C-alpha cells in the first residue's frame, strides 16, 4: 500500500545515512499523548521515516476479561479509552446484551444516548485542548478543560465516577439520574454553544493555526478506507460513514443529526470535522434531554439485573437473585457477537464469545485509536518535525486503548 495518490508536502531527497539523524520521540515526550514512542529518522527538520512503537501501557485487558464475570468486565472497559469511558461501557454492555437477548427500556436507551454524547463532547474537548497545545496555543487548553470539567461534574452526579464512571450495566443503567440532573444538564447545554464559538474565535480564524494545519498529513479517501480509518479521521477524508447513522444502536435512529464530513483529508479537515461534531453532539444531547420520560432504567430480567435495594429488603427472591448474581454471576448463552459503536475516536467494536457460563471465553476490542495510529508513518513521511505533533494530535489517539 502506498500513498501515491497524494504526494507529501516536501520531497525527500535520497541522501547518505550519515546526514540523517535518528531520534527517539517519546515515550516521555510532552506531545505524544501518553506513552507513545516514535522512532523518527530526520533529515534536518524533515521527517524521512516515522515508526510508532507501542506497548508502554500494556495491561493485558483482553486477557483479563476472560477471568472476570461479565458484569465485572465493565470496570475494565473504563480504563481502555479513558477519555471516552461511557462509550467503552456501552459497546461492551451492548455486546453482552445481544448475547443475552435483553430488551432495554426506553428511558435507559435515552439516558445512554445522552451520556454518550456528553462524553463525546468531553473527549473532543480534550482532543481540542491538547491539539491546540501541541501547536502552541496554550490558552485553548485551559478553556477546553474548563468546559470538560462541567461535563465531568454531570457524569459524576449520575454515576459517582469522573474518569471511570462504569455507569452502564448489562440490562440498563447502574441507577436512574439523580434529582436535579436535568436542570444542570440543561444549563450546561445552554452555555455550551457559546464556548464553541469561543474556540472558533481562538483557533479557526487564526492564520498561524490555519497554516500549521492546512495541507498537513493528508490522506485520500481511498487510502483512508484501505487503512481502516474510522470516525472523524475517516470523515475528514470525505467518507460519509458514521455507525450511529449506518447501523443505528441504542435508539440513535430516532435522532435528528448531521454527519459532518470534510473533503481535504488533512489535519485541518479532521479539526473541522470534530469541531462540527461538537455541535452535532450538542444537538443530540438536547434532543435526548427533551425525550426523557419517566420509566424504568433496568431491563425486566431478574437473573441478570441487580434488584433494587428496597426490593431486596422486602422480597425473598430479589435477595436470592442479588446473592447469585454477585457470587456466581449469570450465565450467558453460547455464541459470538461483534458489536460496533461510534465512539468519539471512531469505530469501537467489541467481539465477545461465550461458551455459556458466567465468564466470556474471549473478548476482543477493535480500538479506533490503534487502527488510526497505524496510518501515522504514511502521513508523516515528508513532513516536518513540527507537523508530526500536529498529525498525532489530529489522529486523536489514546494510548490506553492502543495498548490495552
Amino acid at each position: 500500500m502506498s500513498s501515491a495518490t497524494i504526494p507529501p508536502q516536501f520531497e525527500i531527497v535520497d541522501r547518505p545515512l550519515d546526514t540523517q539523524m535518528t531520534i527517539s520521540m517519546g515515550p516521555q515526550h510532552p506531545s505524544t499523548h501518553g506513552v507513545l514512542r516514535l522512532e523518527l529518522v530526520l533529515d534536518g527538520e524533515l521527517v524521512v521515516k516515522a515508526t510508532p512503537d507501542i506497548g508502554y501501557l500494556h495491561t493485558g485487558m483482553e486477557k483479563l476479561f476472560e477471568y472476570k464475570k461479565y458484569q465485572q468486565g465493565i470496570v475494565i472497559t473504563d480504563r481502555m479509552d479513558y477519555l471516552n469511558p461511557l462509550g467503552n461501557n456501552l459497546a461492551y454492555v451492548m455486546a453482552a446484551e445481544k448475547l443475552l437477548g435483553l430488551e432495554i427500556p426506553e428511558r435507559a436507551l435515552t439516558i445512554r444516548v445522552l451520556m454518550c454524547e456528553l462524553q463525546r463532547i468531553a473527549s473532543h474537548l480534550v482532543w481540542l485542548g491538547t491539539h491546540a497545545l501541541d501547536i502552541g496555543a496554550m490558552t485553548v487548553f485551559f478553556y477546553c478543560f474548563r468546559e470538560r470539567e462541567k461535563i465531568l461534574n454531570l457524569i459524576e452526579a449520575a454515576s459517582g465516577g469522573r474518569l471511570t464512571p462504569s455507569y452502564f450495566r448489562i440490562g440498563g443503567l447502574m441507577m436512574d439520574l439523580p434529582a436535579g440532573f436535568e436542570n444542570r444538564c440543561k444549563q450546561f447545554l445552554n452555555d455550551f454553544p457559546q464556548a464553541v464559538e469561543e474556540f472558533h474565535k481562538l483557533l479557526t480564524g487564526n492564520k498561524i493555526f490555519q497554516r500549521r494545519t492546512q495541507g498537513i498529513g493528508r490522506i485520500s479517501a481511498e487510502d483512508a478506507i484501505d487503512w481502516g480509518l474510522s470516525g472523524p479521521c475517516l470523515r475528514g477524508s470525505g467518507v460519509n460513514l458514521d455507525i450511529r447513522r449506518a447501523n443505528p444502536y441504542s435508539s440513535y435512529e430516532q435522532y435528528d443529526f448531521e454527519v459532518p464530513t470534510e473533503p481535504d483529508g488533512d489535519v485541518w479537515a479532521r479539526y473541522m470535522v470534530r469541531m462540527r461534531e461538537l455541535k452535532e453532539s450538542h444537538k443530540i444531547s438536547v434532543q435526548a434531554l427533551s425525550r426523557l420520560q419517566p420509566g424504568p432504567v433496568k431491563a425486566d430480567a431478574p437473573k441478570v439485573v441487580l434488584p433494587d435495594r428496597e426490593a431486596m429488603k422486602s422480597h425473598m427472591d430479589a435477595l436470592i437473585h442479588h446473592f447469585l448474581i454477585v457470587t456466581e454471576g449469570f450465565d450467558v448463552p453460547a455464541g459470538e457477537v461483534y458489536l460496533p459503536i461510534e465512539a468519539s475516536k471512531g469505530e469501537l467494536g467489541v467481539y465477545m464469545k461465550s461458551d455459556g457460563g458466567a465468564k466470556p471465553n474471549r473478548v476482543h476490542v477493535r480500538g479506533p485509536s490503534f487502527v488510526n495510529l497505524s496510518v501515522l508513518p504514511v502521513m508523516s513521511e515528508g513532513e516536518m518535525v513540527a507537523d508530526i505533533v500536529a498529525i498525532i494530535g489530529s489522529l486523536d489517539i489514546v494510548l490506553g486503548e492502543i495498548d490495552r
Partner: protein
Amino acid sequence: MDTAIDIALKFAAITVAFVVVLLIVAYTVLAERRVLGFIQGRLGPNRVGYGGMLQPFADLLKFILKEDIVPDKSTRFVYFLAPVIATMAALMTMIVYPFGPDIRIPFTSITIPLVIARFDVALLYVLGVTSVGVYGIMLAGWSSNNKYSLMGGLRASAQMISYELALGLSLVGVIMLAGTLELGRIVEMQSGWHGLRWFIFFQPLGFIIYLTAAIAETNRIPFDLPEAETELVAGYHTEYSAMKFALFFLAEYINMFTVSMLATTLFLGGWNVPFAEDIFGRGTFLFGLVSAVGFILKVIFFLFLYIWLRGTLPRFRFDQLMNFGWKILLPLALLNIFIIATLIFVFPNL
C-alpha cells in the same frame, strides 16, 4: 581624586541599575504567570507572600537548591560556558539605556544622570552585544549532546540571525531620522510637540517590523521554536537544570526587557512624557521622576504585550518562520527605509 569618585559613582550606578533591572525581571516572571493565569481562567502562583509577591525569591531558592545535573557525554567546558555567555550578553546592553533625564537632587547642586554610559555608537553596541547572545544558545544546544537540544540550538541560531537582519534594518529608519546612534540624543530628539514627535508616528511600519523581529529575537510565542516544548521537549536547555537553567531563563527575560527598552527608546520617545515639561519645568527633580516612571511604564506595556501574545497565539513552523522573516519582514524593512528617505528628502527640516 575626582576620577576615584567618578569610578565609585559609576559602580554605584551600575549596581543600582542591575539590582533594579533584576528585580523588574523577577517580577516580570511573576507577572507573566499571574497574567497568563488571568487570561486562562486560573489563579497562578498566589501563595508565597501577599498575592504571591515573594514567589520570585522562592523560585530563586529552589533553583539554588536543585541538583545540578551535567550529562555524561556533554562537552563540559562549553556546557558551563553557554549559560554564562547568554546571561552576560543579555545584561551588558543594560548600560546604554537612558532611564530618564539627568536628575538634580533637591537643594543641592548634584545631578545624577539616569544612564550608566553615554557613547556615540550605543545603538551599534546594543546590536553587537545581543548578537553574542545567540552563541550562548547555540553552544548550549551543541554541548548538551542531546538531539533535541541540538535541534533547538540550530533553530535558534538560524532564527536569531535571520531576524536580526530585519531588526537592524527597521532601526535604520530611526537612525536616519535622528542622525545619531547615541540613545540619549535620540530620546532628546523625540521631545516636544506633546508626544507627537515620537518616532512611532513617523514610521509606524518600522515600529511593527521592529516589534515582530524583537519577539523572534527573544524566542517568544509565536516564534518560540528554539524551545517549542511540545516539539523539542525544551529545546536548547533540555539538559540544563538548577542555576544553569535559571541563567537561561534569566537571559530570556532580560532580553525581553532590553528589547522593550529599545522599543521605548527608539519609537515611543524614551522617557518623554507628554506635558511633563509644561507642568514641572525642565530639569526639576519632579520632572526627572515623572520621566523615569513614564519610561518604566512604557516598558511594562511592551512586557504585557509579550505575555498577552503568549496567551493568544499558536506557534509557527520552522520553514514558515524563515519565509516570514526573509520574504515578508526583510522587504518591508527595506520599504520602510525607502519611505523614510523620501520623507527626509521632501521635508528636510523634520
